[in-house]
């Protein structure tokens, strides 16, 4: 279908825990500079899918391909070394540590020699501030500032900027906008676009259809561990997607749930005040 090989691809991946099948026959692919939105309600198997992609779980059946080559991840570190970075909803940042120290956690630049290597605070702060500014967060100007003083969106953006700086080629974003306000969410969505522009393959996990439609090129809807629909940008309307995600619920329930979603996005609420 396309000339470029997907950066990451799943082929008929199943995952079961003992007798319980969580994922069935999952096939998906993401190319460089493309955003795949994984939509699904709570309990649809999103977390398991993320953990499989991130090397935490090994698939029970099926295969994972990176750059067209079948791979078996020995663990999360192995996946990271292959350029697969996961940014969790609240994870990846330490509130009581500075921006510079957060950014270089585990990859600290040092000066000095032998046992007297010291953390190079100046360089760390400078690079960290530059990198987050490049991603479009101009409010961070001081690398010594504690991350706890940043907003939720800025913390997410810092974690994403960090992953990008350390050479991530696949960015897995686990509900990055779920706990954020409208403005903050817009912030994170801008960063997602920036990552895409830089040629990263992004897997964006969400249950907020609006956010998915803003940045997604490609969509997959996950229901009870299987891909229920797979379509490209512009092929389906928001209502159709929400319908799919709800997977067979009655229209009334659906409308109520849409209302629930939209309440968190003032200005975008659909005109439906009669839920029953």
């Amino acid at each position, binding site marked *: 279908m396309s000339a470029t090989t997907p950066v990451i691809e799943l082929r008929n991946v199943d995952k079961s825990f003992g007798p319980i099948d969580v994922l069935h026959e999952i096939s998906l692919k993401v190319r460089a500079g493309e955003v795949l939105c994984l939509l699904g309600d709570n309990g649809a198997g999103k977390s398991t899918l993320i953990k499989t992609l991130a090397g935490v779980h090994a698939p029970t059946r099926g295969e994972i391909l990176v750059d067209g080559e079948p791979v078996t991840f020995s663990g999360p570190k192995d996946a990271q070394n292959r350029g697969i970075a996961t940014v969790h909803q609240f994870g990846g940042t330490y509130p*009581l540590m500075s921006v510079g120290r957060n950014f270089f956690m585990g990859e600290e630049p040092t000066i000095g020699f032998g046992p007297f290597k010291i*953390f190079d605070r100046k360089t760390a702060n400078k690079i960290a501030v530059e990198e987050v500014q490049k991603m479009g967060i101009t409010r961070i100007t001081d690398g010594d500032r504690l991350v706890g003083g940043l907003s939720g969106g800025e913390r997410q953006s810092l974690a994403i900027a960090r992953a990008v700086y350390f050479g991530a080629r696949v960015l897995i974003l686990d509900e990055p906008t779920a706990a954020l306000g409208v403005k903050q969410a817009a912030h994170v969505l801008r960063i997602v676009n920036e990552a895409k522009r830089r040629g990263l393959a992004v897997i964006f996990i969400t249950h907020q259809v609006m956010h998915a439609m803003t940045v997604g090129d490609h969509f997959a809807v996950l229901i009870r561990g299987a891909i229920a629909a797979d379509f490209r940008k512009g092929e389906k309307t928001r209502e159709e997607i929400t319908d799919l995600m709800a997977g067979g619920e009655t229209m009334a329930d659906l409308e109520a749930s849409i209302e629930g979603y939209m309440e968190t996005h003032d200005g975008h609420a659909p005109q439906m005040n009669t839920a029953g």
Partner: protein
Amino acid sequence: MDMISSLLRRPATPSILSLIGVLVFYVIFGGVDLDRLSGAASWVNYAARIGIVALPVALLMISGEIDISIGAMIPAGAMTTAIIAGHYGLPMGVAILGALAIGVVVGLFNGILATRTSVPTLIITLGTLVAMQGIVLAGSKLLTGGASVPLTSPAWAKTIFGDFIFGGSHQVVILWWVVLTAVFWFLAHLSKYGNWIFAMGGDKVSARNAGIPVDLITILLFVGTATSASFVGMCHAILFNSAQVSGGMNDIFNIVVSVVVGGVLLTGGFGSIIGVFVGTITFAIVIKGIDFTAIDRNWANLIIGVMLLAAVAMNETFRKKAMTAVTKKKKG
């Protein structure tokens, strides 16, 4: 104003304020002579004793864990030294290695249990605390027939671990304390390992995801606390030429209180070595410095209690302060 507000965000500030508060209180209400107090050895010796253990305990607490088995490890270190060198008359070098080895073994045990199980470390180390008390008491009865063992130390051991310096009554452990403070300061605030320890206290899962060897560091930190406690016990046995079995319960609380007064958050992820150093001094001055005041020494515990509550409240406030944006008013 900017300087004050940034100073207020430093983790060592609460401990410095506590120290000033205690000194002012002692001068005003106790009529203390600051010259005599600063020249006195009693509180410095005491500070060194608890301070050497407080340093690794601080790192451990920053990483989000706690170790109360240190209370049993101080007498365990002392008894091991005395039994090997005094009762069996083996060379002092063997006794020193034995004392440190028992610290390493208990530390490994604590650390491995902490990383392999999900039991809170307060409970794990409570277990090893009580167990070690039993081993030390029953063991020394079994081996020596008593709970107090005398020993004689060679001159070199005296000089290095248990002598008086400056020709007065200051003990040599003070130097150990100061040097160890410098080492821990370097470790916590300048080396990358310090970064990792703070991260572990902030968010263990993220730290692990960032590739930090969380389990290994946890085990090493437990080895550090237990070994430093047995080291302190060993120094005391060498200094006083004898060792007794004791509960060491007071030491646990004194050390943990010093660390908390030093600005380390009970929840982990925040604190400083300088703060713990000052916190230890503050604690020692309250306990031992009260003898230089007109205040009845029985009031010392009340002061400690008030100070602890104030320190916890302050730490919480400082943490909140540290989390709020500093750059709001900055332009350009």
